[in-house]
Structures are given as structure tokens and as C-alpha cells.
């Protein structure tokens, strides 16, 4: 079973050399720390920046330089700034290669719900609907079950949707799964020490298990 860092480390393996990546808030943000050295990866922040660096050193924070999570950050070599319209323009035009974000629910056909719980205060969808509608490749980082112990991988989402048929891959504390519309959650890898049966129990949607399922390799 993976902790949050483990999930981030596993997702980091999906990041390709030379790619542009948008990281959501939470676990996705951690992914930046584990991108293999030697890979050239540029982080896009949808508030208007390409080439997002790490947090600043204490005392070097700049109020004019934040990421989409409103955290103080830094530049890297080759950073470019732009406005919000162009930022979502490049996302829609398919220039961002990979988006990693959290979710409350994902369905068998790749629908995602991650912005609204009826009856609770709704804070807004931010840029999530734009990102899931446009990114070429979307990976969800989330816990396999919610705090009530209910599976978040469902036949159909029960919460209001953020986007439809858009999620390609899910990495949880238990497994790596590919979402194949018309087929279901195809199990690709098990977390260290986790059995297929445990994954099956935690998955409410259709789980597809084909052949031997390897254990993830995480250093």
C-alpha cells in the first residue's frame, strides 16, 4: 500500500522527457519532487506560467509569483509568463502533454467528479473543467476509497461531473489502472504487498484483470 509520496513517485514515472505537465493541487503537486533527474520537464501553472520552479527560500517569496494553488514559487531557466486566456488557450490547443489531478470519483468510461458535493458549500471548479476537457493525457491521483470506506472507482459517478470520458489512467494507494471506455478499469500494477483481491474489493466499477498483474517498482 502506498502513501501519498508513493503515489506521487509512481506517477512521476509516467512523465516523459521533453513534456509539458500541469499538476493539480494536493498529491499531484508532490509529483514534481520525484521526476527522474535528467528528464527535461516543464511545469505549466494555469494562472500564467511555463517553467515553474520549487518553493522559494525563506525570505525570498515574491507576492507577484504564485502558482495555481496560490503558493509562492520560483522561476526556472527559460520561464515564460502569460495571461489566463492564453494559458487556457494553450491547454485547449493540446500543447500541454500531461495533466495530473485529484478526484472524488472516476467512472468506468473515464468520467470524473472532483468539484462539488451536493449539500456542501461549493467552492468552485477553478480550472479543473477546462483541464479535463482539453488535456491530451490525464492521470488521476487519488485514494482508492473515500473516508467512509466507499470505492471511488465506480460504474458511474454519483457526484456532479467535472468532465466526461477524459481520464486515461488512475494511480491510487493500491493500484495503477487504465481506464478503457467500454471495458472498465484495466488493472496494470499492484502496489507493493497488495493483492488483486484487495483491489477488486475496493473497486466498485468493473475491474479488468488480464494475466499476471505485476507489482509496482518504486524506489
Amino acid at each position, binding site marked *: 500500500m502506498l502513501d501519498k509520496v508513493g503515489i506521487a513517485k509512481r506517477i512521476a514515472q509516467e512523465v516523459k522527457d521533453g513534456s509539458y505537465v500541469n499538476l493539480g493541487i494536493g498529491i499531484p503537486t508532490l509529483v514534481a519532487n520525484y521526476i527522474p533527474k535528467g528528464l527535461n520537464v516543464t511545469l505549466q501553472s494555469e494562472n*500564467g506560467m511555463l517553467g515553474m520552479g520549487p518553493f522559494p527560500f525563506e525570505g525570498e517569496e515574491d507576492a507577484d509569483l504564485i502558482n495555481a494553488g496560490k503558493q509562492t514559487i520560483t522561476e526556472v531557466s527559460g520561464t515564460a509568463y502569460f495571461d*489566463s486566456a492564453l494559458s487556457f488557450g494553450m491547454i485547449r490547443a493540446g500543447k500541454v502533454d500531461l495533466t495530473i489531478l485529484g478526484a472524488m470519483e472516476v467512472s468506468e468510461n473515464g468520467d470524473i467528479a472532483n468539484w462539488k458535493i451536493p449539500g456542501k458549500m461549493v467552492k468552485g471548479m477553478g480550472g479543473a473543467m477546462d483541464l479535463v*476537457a*482539453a488535456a491530451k493525457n490525464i492521470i488521476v491521483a487519488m485514494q482508492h476509497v473515500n473516508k467512509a470506506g466507499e470505492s471511488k472507482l465506480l460504474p458511474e459517478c454519483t457526484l456532479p461531473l467535472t468532465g466526461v470520458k477524459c481520464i486515461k489512467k488512475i494511480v491510487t494507494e493500491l493500484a495503477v489502472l487504465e481506464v478503457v471506455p467500454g471495458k472498465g478499469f484495466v488493472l496494470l500494477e499492484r502496489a507493493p504487498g497488495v493483492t488483486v483481491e484487495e483491489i477488486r474489493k475496493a473497486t466498485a466499477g468493473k475491474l479488468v484483470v488480464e494475466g499476471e498483474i505485476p507489482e509496482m517498482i518504486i524506489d
Partner: protein
Amino acid sequence: MNKVVNNAAAAIHDIQDGEVIMLGGFGLCGIPENCINALVNKGTKDLTCISNNAGVDDFGIGLMLKTRQVKKMISSYVGENAEFERQLLSGELEVDLIPQGTLATRCMAAAYGMPAVWVRAGVGTEVAIGKETRVFDGVEYLLEMAFKAKFAIVKAWKGDTHGNLIFRKTTRNFNMPMAMAGQITIAEVEELVPAGTLDPDHIHVPGIYVHRIFQGDNYEKRIEQRTVRQKK
């Protein structure tokens, strides 16, 4: 072509109760602090505010919420504000939540004289309810209308007397498309310089879009999430 006004009070003097206004910034980054304070002082009521966020309880648009000047917020994310939540749940405040990219693009549509734009965000979700949809090349889009706002209020880093604006780092955000989207655009800047001072290749918003400009003062530039790393 001198567009300089004395201060924030002069810049916003004719914003009436019930007006639709755009306010630039992302979170607390690059918000028009001086104009917000002036609106609080003026006490303009029943405002509809188009702004990506709604500030925090004691800063930014939060100040206008506290004084009940806002009738409606049109935003993508309003999560850092307890007073906002209270007013929303009590029904005192209307809120129209729309995807961030759609928000930016509806500003841009106004800036470029487009009546409406086709966007994918929200297709198949409750955002699509009541909206016209259309398939281009096998992909479904929603028709989203350009914003019409009488006033846009933005904050830039530098500006000149002709209204040309330059932003710094991630403050361009919604300030830039809103600056170009307002029927009357008010810009406050940290440094106001004579026309001819700024390099014409570095200007982000040409002065034709800006109607009033002034040099603000006492910028707090508050940080919402101060995240740092330790020196090793």
C-alpha cells in the same frame, strides 16, 4: 491622450450601484488594492463582480463582501472566505461559478470583439445546462457568451500616461484579458511613467484599451499561501 487621474477615488467616481464590474487578479496576486479600498469607501452597492476569486475575509474583494456591497459574484473559485460562505448560504449573495478558462475566454472574447466563443469545458456537466452545444470535428463544444462589463478594474506593474500597461510575473493573469474587455478600463499601477518611457515591444496591454490610469500607493501585496523551502 493623457489618461491620468489623481487617485483611486477619482478613477472609480462614476461606478454606480448595481453596476457590473470586472476585477483583475488571481487569488490575492495582482489585485487592484487601491480601487477596492476606494469602492469600500464610496460604499457602492449591489455590484456584480466578475473576478476569478473573491479575496479573503479581510483583504481583496473580501472587504467589499464584509460591507455587503456585492450582490453577485461571477467566479471560478471562491473558497478562502468565511464571510462569503455565510452570505452565500444565507441567500444574501448570488454566485455564478464558471470554469476558469471559460471565465478568461469570455473576457478575451469581449477584448477581441467576438460575441461568443465555443469552448469544451463543461460539456456533459451541469455547466452545460441550458447552453447551446455543437460538434466540430467530432468534439462537442458549448457556446459561451462574451462578458459585457461597464467597468474593468485592473492592477499593473508599470503604466504610462497613454494607458500602456506592463505586468510583472504571474500578475498578468486575469488583469490582462479584463483590461482589454471593459467598456471603461481603470488601471492602477505601481509606477506611472511618462509616455515614451516604456519599451514599445514590452507593452502587454496597448493604451487604446485603458481609459483611466493612476499610480497607487501603500501596496500590501499580501501572500495567500506562503510556501518556502529551507536552505540546506
